[in-house]
């Protein structure tokens, strides 16, 4: 994780295309400027960033299922529950599954656990549109490689 750059996941461990499920790993950094404000002397991973981490996890599942042809943009967060405090250095396991695949939108159910305990969960809605530019897609391909995307990345957008 690199919170300042919105890099909220570290590695895509598994995508099951048949079951439409993804598993991702991340570790909350020990230091970050974000912890200077949230909160002084009592650093906590902000809940909104946990939701963003679930969104990124869901997003890679959607991108993978669509063969890197389309880009999901977060459009809605429902039933978000932040179940426990997350402190610097905490290892996280993230999962997302497709709840509904609509026309131009997708709904996922995502959750984060740490050492077997539930950290948070939410239902997320995404608008799913063609990549705005070829460069955007290329950037996402590079990011996928950095995250060790565990399947073949189609060459053409």
């Amino acid at each position, binding site marked *: 994780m690199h919170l300042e750059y919105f890099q909220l996941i570290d590695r895509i461990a598994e995508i099951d295309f048949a079951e439409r499920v993804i598993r991702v790993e991340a570790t909350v950094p020990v230091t970050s400027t974000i912890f200077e404000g949230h909160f002084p002397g009592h650093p906590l991973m902000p809940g909104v960033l946990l939701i963003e981490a679930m969104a990124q996890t869901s997003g890679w599942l959607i991108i993978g299922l669509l063969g890197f042809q389309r880009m999901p943009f977060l*459009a*809605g967060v429902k039933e978000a529950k932040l179940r426990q405090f997350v402190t610097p250095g905490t290892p996280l396991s993230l999962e997302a599954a497709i709840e*509904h*695949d*609509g*026309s*131009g*939108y997708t*709904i996922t159910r995502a959750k984060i656990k740490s050492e077997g305990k539930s950290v948070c969960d939410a239902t997320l*809605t995404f*608008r799913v549109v063609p990549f705005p530019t070829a460069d955007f897609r290329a950037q996402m391909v590079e990011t996928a490689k950095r995250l060790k995307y565990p399947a073949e990345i189609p060459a053409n957008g």
Partner: protein
Amino acid sequence: MSSTLDTVSNIIAETCDIPRETITPESHAIDDLGIDSLDFLDIAFAIDKAFGIKLPLEQWTQEVNDGKATTEQYFILSNLSARIDELVAAKKA
């Protein structure tokens, strides 16, 4: 068993917090009821689930943008209900 129009009207009322009595078959979801595109995603999800279909929103939007269809054909509730009935029938066929 409630009609498609009743089901759709109830979904819109519940999803968008619009008084049910203000929703009529002639209501235009966007122009009259003021439903924005984000709320319409929630409505589409509820309709997809309720009827076991996939509303072809992208296709409809493309047709409207290309001038091949009007928003009235898809977003006046009586017309939307008729489209849903067609999709349900096509799925059963």
